């Protein structure tokens, strides 16, 4: 990674407990990037596209996305990110959700999701999955969104 510290992790997860568990396990994996947590789609989209510290205006980021949100479907957010014109569309999106329906998984990949992970109910598996995701995040190359500005 060119500058791993500058990559913001945007977590869109309506369940506070899940968010906390995810964050704990990411930290345990040694990932110390800043994590911005949103519990609904509207504010999350607003941050991504309009906030000065958001990925659209302020460099690389990585999105952790839950599909079951109170105000909109996670797939809508995914579609908005992947069909946008700006640099945001190159932002890696990791779908992290309880849904393991094959059609839903397929749909997410069709919409451009980079990784789809089902949250295991068993905590050991869950923790392990998140830690592995952390390892994955530590080696992943995030596009330098700043390039898009030219």
């Amino acid at each position, binding site marked *: 990674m060119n500058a791993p510290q500058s990559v913001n992790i945007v977590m869109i997860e309506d369940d506070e407990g899940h968010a906390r*568990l995810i964050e704990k396990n990411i930290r345990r994996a040694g990932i110390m990037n800043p994590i911005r947590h949103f519990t609904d789609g509207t504010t999350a989209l607003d941050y991504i596209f309009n906030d000065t510290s958001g990925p659209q205006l302020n460099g690389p980021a990585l999105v952790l996305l839950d599909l*079951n949100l109170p105000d909109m479907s996670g797939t809508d957010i995914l579609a908005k990110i992947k069909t946008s014109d700006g640099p945001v569309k190159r932002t890696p999106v990791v779908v992290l959700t*309880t849904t393991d*329906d094959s059609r839903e998984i397929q749909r997410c990949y069709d919409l451009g999701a980079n990784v789809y992970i089902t*949250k295991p109910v068993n*905590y050991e598996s869950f923790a392990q999955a998140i830690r592995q995701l952390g390892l994955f995040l530590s080696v992943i190359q995030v596009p330098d969104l700043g390039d898009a500005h030219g």
Partner: protein
Amino acid sequence: MAELPAAAPTNRTLARRMTALMALGFIALLLVGYAAVRVMQRNELHTGLVEHTYQVERAVLDVRRLVEESEAARRGLMLIPDRTVTRTNFQRARAQMTPALAHIDGLVRDNPAQRRYLQGLRLQLGSLLARQDRTLALLATGDQRNAILAFADDAEVRDIVTIRNVLDRMAQVERRLMTHRDAELRASQSAFYTLIVLGGVVLAVAAVISTLTILSYTRDLARSDEALRELNAGLEDMVAARTEDLTRANEEIQRFAYIVSHDLRSPLVNVMGFTAELETAASSLRALVERVDAEAPAVASEEARLAATEDLPEAIGFIRTSTQKMDRLINAILQLSRQGRRALAPEKIDVAALIQQIGETLSHRLSETDTVLSVQGSLPVVVSDRLALDQIFSNLIENAVKYLRPGVPGRITVSGRRERDRLHYTIRDNGRGIDPRDHQRVFDLFRRSGAQDRPGEGIGLATVRALVFRLGGSIDVASELGQGAAFTVSLPLVVAKQELNP
């Protein structure tokens, strides 16, 4: 909905009425035929009688002619006594007189009036013939004068006039008789015509009534046919509507099960996750308590020690096992609902090959338990969903392997037969069997029977039953404790294609 007309009584009444009408027609025909025969007979009789009358008349005329001829000859001889032709004529007329009279006699023997006239005629003729004989006798002696004088007698004239009168009377009697008989014949003929007309009218009426009856019956039939059709259409609509309702309700349940089981998972992740966190925290607490125990026993209270070493681990253990079980149950519901949502793909399936395939998949467990899986006879081929059928038979055979009697080598046989448009497959084992009280229960979700010494959640048979129902079939079990079990799956020959629900 149209009411069905009562068809049966109408039928019986119709049959009775038609029979009566036919009988009436036949009777009319018979009467007309009988009358025709009678009229023919009368005609024949009459013709005979007419002939008879003419014969009598002719006979009477013959006698008259002979009398006149003999008289004419007599007069001729009185004028010219020696003329032989005249004498011959006279003698011939006289000779023919007796047979002519006998002929009349023969003809009128049955008629008293005529007989009386005939008697009178004979008397008068006798008198006349006597006079003729006398004339001839006188002429033979050459006494022409006396012969002519005798002829001039008044009695002479009276005789011939009387004879003529009698003969006229006889002719008249016959004429009258014939007129009378003619009238009779005409009467009988007109009676015949009346009868024919009457018979015709009866026949026509019978025909009209039968036609009307049949027409009205046909109309009734058409009406009831229409009513039946309407009823049928109504039924079909009703069935379609109910099916739609059921399908919708089923879809609703499927969706409900899916959503509920899904949404139940989310909080479960938290419960399990934070239980694990709690365990980690508890273990560090326990370490602390142990250290305090070792270094400054006075500080640690008995309660704190118990809480850290026993209460917390126990509580966490229970939470953990319960949530794990809950997770398995939710997964089972999810799996069931997912199967209900899957579209069926009917294809021709060689069930024997399918069983063999399942046997190969389970070969390790079969040999481990010394179990033999065999197919008895030939299994009928079915058109159904392969995946569903595979799951059904796999589950049943796995169950058979799972619940064997300890120490008894397993024998699992699969047999099948066809009954009209249903196929019955039976999976029979020699395992521990199922208490008859539990035969229905074992098919319920999360319900099990017998000793709970095998892992499982009570999902397999519920899945099997759901799948069998989905394929339009049914499942039954026959078993006694310790006697093995026989599960019979009944399927339609061809599975009905279902619209899948999204």
